């Protein structure tokens, strides 16, 4: 993928920050000054003070002479970094990789590869960043280019456009001053002395010549801007995976040893998850054996959990599947899927047991771990008449029913998975049978109720409708029979048994 970088330059980071905090300073020229060799040296200048000729690096006393009424504020070392860190964390909304510009300490660098289309293009993306930061009160200049170095240069020194097209960064750099390359002051002074006022005047020179005169660092910065050298951004927020490692002094080959290892890793992992309010949904235990093979077992939970004893029980069920052979020398416990844990209320509030009772959830996890999650079923009513489809499976244990269960029509307590054909003797069409033979046994029908006609869901499958009868035989057995299709000479119909009533 084409990599793209955005550089955000805060032109007056400290001044803007102070103006946001104290809007009353808008009319007053002010500077930040820090003690240096017994003097107060100006480190940052407000726009109003800059207008009257005050510059960073001046002595505060001199500045006061130039600009009467100048307010001098104390600067604290490390303040720009703290401000940039806060702004960078806010900027994570634009890209997961946000880094502080370590060279100037007055800007941010974003790796925006594959992010800009989410805002409708690079122009809209930059516009959004600028307007949002401006709304907060920061004056910024931004630029987007193929390399962080080029984006940095254009955001500070570019005069044409902040949007450098793909592959156009070299061309954009040519007309800029050498300051745009993030060079140290001695190197810049040497360049100026030799009359290099633009990058294009030295970019084509042989590397050996440049190295001799300006040093290795100069070449490195030039290469970073041109893209021949890779620049790694150190993101502010590193996503820390939930992982525990346990190297073993001696290879472990007993069940007890593995149990101790699991327990130890779970303890520290659960402690971390608890602190972050997370719970494990799936866990993978990997054992690296001394013969080079890797053994792996996985568990899953139906609700996020950071309880050591519960997770340990789940792993305990899987220990049989671990073949230590000659011994395991390294255990790694991963939690690839974690979720926010709902902190359980105090015991006194949850006196009422139910489906989401903690002990029930744990039971389900153990069953899912031992036998498999696909054996657990829960049913909810479906708005359908066809008996086989009148119940639907619940997705999770807490899913609520959306409709009521139907009570108006009798339904058998036991329903056959597929209806069994029976032989029937019925006297009159559309009457319940007089007797039926099921599995070789003849049942004399004493009482009957029906028919209840249930139409087939023709939009799903073709076939005949069913006419259901509830019948009772002379032994007291109650059955659910149906005739598939109409009575008739040429039409085919067949009788089936579909269930048993209580």
């Amino acid at each position: 993928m084409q990599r793209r970088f955005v550089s955000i330059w805060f032109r007056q980071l400290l001044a803007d920050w102070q103006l946001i905090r104290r809007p009353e300073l808008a009319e007053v020229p002010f500077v930040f000054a820090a003690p240096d060799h017994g003097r107060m040296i100006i480190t940052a200048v407000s726009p109003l003070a800059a207008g009257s000729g005050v510059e960073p690096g001046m002595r505060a006393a001199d500045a006061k002479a130039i600009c009467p009424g100048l307010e001098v504020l104390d600067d604290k070392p490390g303040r720009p970094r703290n401000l940039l860190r806060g702004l960078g964390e806010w900027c994570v909304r634009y890209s997961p990789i946000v880094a502080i510009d370590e060279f100037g300490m007055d800007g941010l660098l974003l790796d925006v590869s594959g992010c800009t289309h989410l805002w409708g293009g690079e122009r809209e993306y930059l516009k959004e960043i600028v307007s949002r930061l401006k709304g907060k009160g920061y004056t910024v200049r931004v630029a987007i280019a193929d390399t962080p170095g080029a984006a940095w240069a254009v955001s500070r020194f570019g005069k044409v456009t902040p949007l450098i097209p793909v592959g156009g960064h070299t061309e954009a750099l040519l007309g800029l001053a050498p300051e745009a390359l993030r060079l140290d002051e001695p190197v810049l002074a040497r360049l100026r002395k030799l009359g290099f006022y633009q990058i294009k005047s030295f970019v084509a020179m042989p590397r050996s010549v440049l190295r001799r005169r300006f040093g290795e660092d100069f070449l490195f910065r030039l290469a970073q801007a041109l893209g021949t050298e890779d620049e790694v951004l150190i993101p502010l927020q590193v996503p820390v995976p939930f992982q525990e490692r346990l190297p073993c002094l001696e290879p472990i080959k007993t069940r007890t040893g593995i149990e101790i290892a699991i327990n130890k890793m779970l303890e520290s992992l659960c402690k971390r998850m608890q602190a972050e309010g997370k719970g494990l949904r799936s866990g993978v235990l990997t054992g690296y054996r001394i013969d080079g093979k890797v053994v792996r077992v996985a568990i899953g939970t139906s609700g996020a959990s950071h309880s050591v004893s519960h997770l340990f029980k789940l792993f305990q069920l899987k220990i049989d599947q671990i073949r230590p052979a000659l011994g395991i020398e390294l255990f790694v416990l991963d939690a690839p899927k974690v979720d926010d844990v709902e902190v359980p209320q105090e015991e006194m509030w949850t006196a009422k047991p139910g489906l989401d009772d903690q002990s029930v959830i744990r039971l389900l996890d153990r069953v899912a771990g031992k036998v498999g999650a696909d054996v657990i079923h829960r049913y909810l009513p479906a708005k359908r008449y066809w008996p086989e489809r009148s119940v639907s499976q619940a997705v999770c244990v807490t899913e609520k029913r959306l409709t009521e269960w139907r009570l108006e029509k009798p339904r058998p307590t036991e329903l056959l998975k597929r209806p069994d054909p029976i032989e029937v003797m019925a006297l009159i069409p559309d009457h319940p049978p007089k007797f039926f033979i099921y599995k070789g046994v003849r049942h004399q029908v004493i009482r009957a109720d029906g028919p209840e006609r249930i139409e087939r869901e023709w939009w799903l499958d073709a076939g005949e409708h069913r006419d259901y009868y509830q019948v009772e035989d002379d032994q007291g057995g109650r059955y659910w029979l149906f005739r598939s299709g109409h009575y008739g000479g040429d039409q085919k119909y067949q009788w089936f048994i579909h269930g048993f009533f209580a």
Partner: protein
Amino acid sequence: MKWIMEDKKEIFLKLQQDILVWQGFKPQAGGKAECVGLGEIEQAFPGGTFPKRAIHEFITVLPEHSAASDGFIAGLLAVLMQEGAACVWVSTARRLFPASLSLFNVEPERIIFMDVKTEKEVLWITEEALKCEGLSAVVAELNNLSLIESRRLQLAVEESGVTGFILRKDASKAASTVATARWKISPLLTNVESGLPGLGFPRWQVELLKVRNGNPGSWVLEWAGERFEQVENVRKVAEVAAWSEQEDRQIG
């Protein structure tokens, strides 16, 4: 001498009561009897209370019997699950139709079905579920249950207080379990007002074949829409109007 005898009698009584408690029979406390709605049948149990901390075994060989047992258990579950706790139903070849449970005042979505492949898995899940205090009852459909297995289940029940129902398909080894009660529920002809078409309330012959420290017996019970109702005098099959007399009726 007589005084010593009296004293011993008291000790015996006390010991007997202790044994009952250990076996899962709760003594009737403070006048508030825990009723499961079985009426007179509850008197067959020691102390006149339906034992909740116990394993109940149902012999179901024919599908008609197992359907009747399902209905009877569902009626009991309606009371046991009143407090909101869930129920687990374990089986290898389940035929229970969840929607029908609502006819017995049980919310079918509060029953967790576990449909596994082997008997061994059924036993493992049953034991684990019986240890789970958040459940109200566990129903397991089994073909066979050995003495040792049943003892394990009984131990789990005594710990947690979950009621266990075992539906057994095999009747031959009926004598060799430690279940507190053994039931046999067989369907009976329903009773309808003479001349009316259709079927009446589900009616069963409830046989309590074995009950520890209690009196076995046989009753006729009906599920009268909302609750169990005992039927005193059962009409003979012969009295029921034969099908031929109803042939001229209009149906539907």
